[in-house]
């Protein structure tokens, strides 16, 4: 951390310490996903199956539990972002309030509701409903669920193409 502060533009996020913290965060994220049931596509599809509340024409029952995953996570991040006060980019206040390894907070600043947001979200939703995996759980369950032998490479290819189109 101290070395990063001497030269202004060097970011210590990818230093050895940063890499260890990144690894720890990934392990924690995986623990949460697995423990909560997000890596089980049956449970995810059970949560998305709200129609089962209203009709017998669809199989299965509604499983509310994944709402508690999002609820538990968002309670923590609401506190995190409130405590951290990462208020925009070039605020002078950020000198006193910096991340451990980076010069400043770099958080999304966009507030517009545009077509890619809506259409991309809709495409993601259809894929999520079909497969029962969103990106985090797909990676966390990659080695344990044989369906992901097909799903994950396709997902990475889709990300790569979308990134190409965007740039």
């Amino acid at each position, binding site marked *: 951390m101290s070395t990063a502060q001497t030269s202004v533009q060097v970011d210590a*996020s*990818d230093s050895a310490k*940063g890499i*260890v*913290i*990144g*690894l*720890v965060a*990934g*392990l*924690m*994220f*995986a623990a*949460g996903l*697995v*423990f*909560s049931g997000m890596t089980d596509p049956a449970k995810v*599809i059970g949560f*998305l*199956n709200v129609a089962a509340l209203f009709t*017998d*024409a669809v199989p299965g029952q509604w499983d509310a*539990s994944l709402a*508690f*995953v999002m*609820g*538990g*996570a*968002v309670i*923590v*991040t609401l506190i*995190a*972002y409130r405590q*951290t006060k990462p208020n925009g980019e070039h605020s002078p206040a950020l000198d006193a309030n910096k991340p*451990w390894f980076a010069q400043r907070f770099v*958080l999304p600043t966009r*507030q517009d509701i545009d077509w890619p*947001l809506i*259409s991309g979200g*809709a*495409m*993601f*939703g259809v*894929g*999520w409903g*079909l*497969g029962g995996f*969103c990106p*985090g759980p797909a*990676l*966390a369950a*990659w080695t*344990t669920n044989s*369906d992901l032998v*097909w*799903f994950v490479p*396709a997902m*990475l290819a889709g990300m790569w193409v*979308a*990134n190409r189109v965007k740039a």
Partner: protein
Amino acid sequence: MHPFLQAAIGGIVIGLASWLVLAAFGRVTGISGITTGALQPVASKSDSGQRGGLAALANWRFAFVVGLIVGGAWFTQVFAVSSAMPSRGPGLLILAGLLVGYGTVRGSGCTSGHGVCGLGRRSARSLIAVVVFMAAAMLTVTVTGFMAGGAA
């Protein structure tokens, strides 16, 4: 343990991991963004000009993804989790994967970036995204449910 409690505890751990990323790197924990970012420096040499090629994999995002994959395998053993879902055909899985990958990058986020972090930041843009992808996913499960036919 009640499944709701188990889900909430898992969610809190996910939230804490996101807090750690915010405190350490000053970034949101969006899995779709981190995954594309992890592999980016390899293709584009390096934005800072120091590392290129495979050495560029020495970045916090790649470490996070490694932790996610290795941790997923490990904790599945530790918590003895098994899936009740029967295997699906490759065609459906490839289509689903392409849609998830393309859609999350096009829509600037997934369940973690727009959901866990976006809602935590109280971003209206993320709230809209969450409503859209949740609605699309629920509609998809409803349609496939009707096609499979009721019973139970």
